[in-house]
């Protein structure tokens, strides 16, 4: 009976169902694209560049010098790891690299290859050549733009010039072992990754690190993680990625805010539509509902009938919205949206990927569907209660 009732006003039901299905479709794609965007940005920032948290020696950020170090990094790394964090120290230095006629100012990042793999995915971002290998102390991996500026590629020789801790000029020759993809401006233009031991030797810093990059366990909130890390390293400068990159952090937060606002607007509209459609469906049938009540149909059975009618419509809408979203998502998550002209540009120093892809997770479906069901459930409650409370005598006085 509910099924047939849904189709008695075919046009209204089709409009209602289409609106819900379309709304759901839009929200699913939107959520997937936004997730893709945020994940892309976060991956650029967290996975490839800054990690979740960083520990510096006191004053290092104002005045980065070779001799300002965390003297005993192992004393920090061990407790952090035992608390579920991943952490790795890096030796940092500044200098010049040259190839042929060209030269550029760069920042050297000496990494412990094995340990660094637990805190970054930069090793997966090698466009050409290979990532560092402890067995190849002279091999370095450089940023994309730097390679272009110096006109070098895998296998070419680089002249490296810097100042050692004693103030003496340090000079050496290295080979380009790998060139990275676009990551972030700083790395693209001036990032030179090399083995920790090689950099220590070059700048004569036998021990200590300048920076520890920390990744938190997935279920630990950033602020709590910061608290724990500060507990382990009370005398050091502990920064979250949001503190290190405040503009990016607020951009990502506002993205999520915009997404939420979109959801709310969309669903309020759908809620009103349902409220209106179901109110009409109840009022134009008020006499019929009165007859049902007169014949001994109970209020709960009437309530159930109306909810079922609404449920059928939501069910069809969800099925339609989901199945229509699948091909669209398949396209958006594989081919993606080609940003064409924007490719290679960066937003706030984070490289935009040339293709904007949707990120598909179950949340991309379950969240919009859940919200739809909840909103529609709220919207239908009033008409349904109205129908359940119909008094036969009054209902039948309606002509």
């Amino acid at each position, binding site marked *: *009976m509910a099924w*047939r009732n849904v189709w*008695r006003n075919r046009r209204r039901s089709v409009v209602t169902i289409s609106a819900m299905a379309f709304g759901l479709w839009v929200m699913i794609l939107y959520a997937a694209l936004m997730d893709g965007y945020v994940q892309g940005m976060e991956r650029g920032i967290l996975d490839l560049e800054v990690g979740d948290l960083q520990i510096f020696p006191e004053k290092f950020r104002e005045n980065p010098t070779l001799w300002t170090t965390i003297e005993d990094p192992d004393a920090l790394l061990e407790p952090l790891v035992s608390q579920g964090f991943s952490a790795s120290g890096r030796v940092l230095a500044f200098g010049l690299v040259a190839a042929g006629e060209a030269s550029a100012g760069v920042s050297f990042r000496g990494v412990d290859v094995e340990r660094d793999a637990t805190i970054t995915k930069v090793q997966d971002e090698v466009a050409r050549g290979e990532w560092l290998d402890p067995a190849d102390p002279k091999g370095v991996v450089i940023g994309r733009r730097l390679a272009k500026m110096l006109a070098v590629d895998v296998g070419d020789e680089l002249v490296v010039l810097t100042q050692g801790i004693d103030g003496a000029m340090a000079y050496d020759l290295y080979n380009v072992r790998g060139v990275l993809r676009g990551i972030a401006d700083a790395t693209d233009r001036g990032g030179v990754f090399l083995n920790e031991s090689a950099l220590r030797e070059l700048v004569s810093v036998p021990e200590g690190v300048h920076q520890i990059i920390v990744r938190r366990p997935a279920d630990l909130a950033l602020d709590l993680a910061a608290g724990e890390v500060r507990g382990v390293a009370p005398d050091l400068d502990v920064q979250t990625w949001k503190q290190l990159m405040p503009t990016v952090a607020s951009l990502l937060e506002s993205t999520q805010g915009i997404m939420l606002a979109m959801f709310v607007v969309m669903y309020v509209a759908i809620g009103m539509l349902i409220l209106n459609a179901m109110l009409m469906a109840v009022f134009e049938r008020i006499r019929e509902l009165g007859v049902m009540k*007169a*014949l*001994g*149909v*109970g209020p709960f059975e009437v309530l159930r009938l109306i909810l079922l009618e609404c449920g059928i419509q939501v069910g069809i809408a969800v099925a339609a919205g989901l199945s229509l979203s699948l091909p669209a998502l398949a396209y958006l998550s594989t081919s993606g949206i080609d940003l064409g002209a924007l490719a290679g540009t960066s937003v706030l120093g984070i490289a935009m990927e040339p293709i904007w892809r949707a990120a598909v997770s179950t949340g991309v479906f379950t969240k919009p569907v859940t919200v739809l069901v909840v909103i529609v459930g709220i919207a239908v409650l009033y008409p349904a209660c109205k129908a359940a409370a119909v*008094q036969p005598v009054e209902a039948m006085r309606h002509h």
Partner: protein
Amino acid sequence: MTAIVELTDVTKRYVQGSVEVMALRGLTFTVEAGEFTAIVGPSGSGKSTALNLIGALDRPTGGVVKVEGRNLAEMGARALSQLRRDRIGFVFQAYNLMPVLTAYENAEMVLALQGVDPAERRERVVKLLADVGLAGLEQRRPEELSGGQQQRVAIARAIASDPAIVLADEPTANVDSETAESLLALMEALNQRRGVTFLFSTHDARVMERARRIIRIVDGRVESDEKKPAHPQQPGTGVPAG
């Protein structure tokens, strides 16, 4: 004879905004099993109000309404709903049927609510529709039936659960007089052959004539109550629906 309906000094006051209407002012009568009774009276005299009170669709302002000896005032909403489902059949003036259900499904509705098993339901409903002259039209929707045929479905539904009484508020008001005649003939036949108790209201003099008892209400009180001897002529049954 057992009293199926007993009204004692029933009053009903409607308040609509600042206007008060005394629809019933001390209505007293009883209806016994097997009767075929018409309630007549001028418009606004309280016929519908009385039928609604008997049918447990509304509560009186004063007085006592009893159906099969049970005082309706002492019953809760749920019990009243059950009483309507199991003991009372309703035929309204118009728009009686669920438009999305077929004639068969409409007639079956009350039995389904009662939880009668489908096989028995099927048997009873098919026979019932044949009895009211609708054999072969079971699968039609109300919109595919004439007004008279729709009322026949409503009558079939009303008697499907073997109620103590069928209340019909102007069942013939929306059909032409020929159809009205045939509906009355049908009700009469059901009354005589199955012993269904009917209490119906009407304005129509020709319909009135068929009743074996006429309760005339004026201004919410019984003005006259006459019983006629059993109808001499044999009622026509199975008349094709009008």
